[in-house]
């Protein structure tokens, strides 16, 4: 059975005249790993600071473990925070950094030592680092110390403010895996703020996409990817194709027909249509990996576009083809696994086919 550990109820936040959050509501379950994702300025960091108690909402309430957090300071909340720039105490050793919350709390000495040792083991920190100053550790090690300092007092909710944004790609990958493992081991609720949807998909059980101070969609990673609530969510990850189509409501679904490229009109179920669609035009969302490059158009009315190959990139595990299609203002992108076999030349006419099974429509570009 799932218990809500944290409830955000119609929270708004104004800074002067600027509305950073606008009636945001969100329930987070105990032990869950949730990611708040969005472009910079979307309000995700403001929301995190409100959860931590560094800022207070202009309107609305936050409840943690059924307790109203109005006027409760960060120290008194069962939350701990991992800061964007880590905020390790530069004048304290690694061990002193990790012990700091326990000392403040007045935890008995032997218990402090035991817990610090547990943290060292969990974070895979070498014991000889105990008496080093943070400045002498690598970026990844500093990250682990910051995590240890936040987790050592056994918070119910761990808040992470883009803790990996400053790391290089390779280190980031390995720390993401570590974070997942640590979450599994401690079982505490993790709330991660990130602008990287891919990172969120890797780590989180649920993702909350925010835009302009509002929640755009909350859902499982697969839902965010396959059935995005809005065009914005659809386009937030990687590169995506949008193909204009006409929409005609039919029963609880709709029939779509291509306005660019070819294909027989197709009936979509209600679940294949974003809730934001109104009117007769929409965009068909086609992920590059769902596109197949072919030499000839499919018979039997299968959906496809025809275009001229403008560029191809080898990405190692896959190859990306970019097509100029008349009627589309952006390149149409196809991605197939493996190396390019070299049978298509740049400038050649090619056909890009896509399967009806993964059709999903979002509102057209405004």
């Amino acid at each position, binding site marked *: 059975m799932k218990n809500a550990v944290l409830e955000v109820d119609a929270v708004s936040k104004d800074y002067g005249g600027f509305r950073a959050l606008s009636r945001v509501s969100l329930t987070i379950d105990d032990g869950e790993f949730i990611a708040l994702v969005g472009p910079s300025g979307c309000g995700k960091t403001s929301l995190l600071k409100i959860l*931590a108690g*560094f800022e207070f909402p202009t309107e609305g309430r936050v409840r943690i473990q059924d307790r109203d957090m109005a006027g409760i*300071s*960060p*120290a*008194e909340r069962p*939350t*701990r*925070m991992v*800061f*964007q*720039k880590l*905020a*390790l*105490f*530069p*004048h304290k050793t690694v061990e002193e950094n990790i012990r*700091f*919350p326990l000392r*403040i*709390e007045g935890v008995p000495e032997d218990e402090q030592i035991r817990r610090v040792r547990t943290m060292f083991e969990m974070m895979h920190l070498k014991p000889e680092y105990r008496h080093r*100053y*943070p*400045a*002498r550790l690598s*970026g990844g090690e500093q990250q682990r110390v910051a995590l240890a*300092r*936040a987790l050592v*007092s056994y918070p119910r909710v761990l808040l992470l403010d883009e803790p990996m944004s400053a790391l290089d790609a390779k280190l980031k990958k390995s720390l993401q895996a570590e974070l997942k493992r640590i979450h599994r081991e401690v079982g505490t609720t993790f709330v991660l703020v990130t602008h990287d949807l891919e990172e969120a998909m890797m780590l989180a059980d649920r993702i909350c996409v925010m835009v302009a101070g509002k929640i755009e969609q909350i859902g499982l990673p697969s839902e965010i990817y396959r059935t995005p609530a809005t065009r914005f969510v659809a386009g937030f990850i990687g590169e995506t194709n949008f193909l204009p189509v006409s929409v005609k409501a039919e029963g609880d679904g709709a029939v779509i027909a291509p306005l660019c490229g070819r294909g027989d009109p197709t009936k979509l179920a209600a679940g294949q249509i974003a809730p934001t669609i109104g009117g007769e035009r929409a965009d068909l969302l086609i992920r590059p990996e769902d596109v197949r490059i072919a030499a000839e158009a499919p018979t039997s009315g299968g959906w496809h576009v025809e275009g001229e190959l403008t560029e191809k990139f080898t990405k190692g595990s896959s190859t990306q083809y970019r097509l100029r299609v008349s009627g589309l203002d952006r390149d149409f992108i196809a991605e197939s696994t493996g190396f390019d076999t070299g049978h298509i030349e740049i400038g050649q006419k090619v056909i890009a086919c896509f399967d009806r099974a993964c059709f999903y429509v979002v509102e057209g570009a405004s």
Partner: protein
Amino acid sequence: MLRLQNRIIDWALVGGTLAFILFLYVPILTLVLFSFADSRVLTFPIEGMTLHWYAQLFQNPNFYNALKSSLILALITMILSTILGTGSALAWMRLNFPFKRALQALSFLPILFPQLLLGVMMLLWFSVLRNFIAVPMGMITLVIGHVIYATPFVLVVVSVQVHGFDAAIEDAARDAGASEWQVLTRITLPILRPAIVAGMILAFLLSWGNFYLSYSLNGSSQTLPIFIFSGIAVGSSPIYPAIATLNFLAALVLVVIAEKMRRKATRRLAGTES
């Protein structure tokens, strides 16, 4: 050809800098030399070496009084300027308040202003003030003048360090349950300590060597620079080079400590940002 030209420029720069350093130390070395000269008149070449003038210096009661005044004044100035300067540096960095920019400009005025004029204007102020409250010219007025002059320097030194100090570090301590007092005493002040100590030493030296402000504000009490000035105005004596030599030795120790602290501070800052 170009290469040769570049080398000449390089060596001219190095030579010029060395010449400048030499220039800075000409009067200092001259004084040290004469403090050991075995002659009542300060002429060169000197005839012999002696420690006689140091002995005579310590038998001079006026010197003792001036030394005592200077020491008390410099210590009080150091303590007050450090507290006020550190407080202001923290407030400027962390707070927004009305007239903040005006206050900042005002705070730096004492550095940018001719000290003599500052002293004279304060002297006038105290003299008029005397009609309402009794402010005896002397230690109190000296302290006020010196604190106003030295605090901006402390402020600058501490501000530089506050500037490179991520405010999230304080939030991390609050998040870990620390009270405001604990944040201040366990996190903020210890991190700023090197800069605060450097600022303290600077304030001490600025007060210790100050002439222009003291000249207007001293009333009847004599500080060391005033004692020396009134002495050399009458006629030179080898006890002044002896004072100078002792002074340099003490200042040397303080400057070395201050520099060590400053470097420690920059190292720490570099560490947290890597």
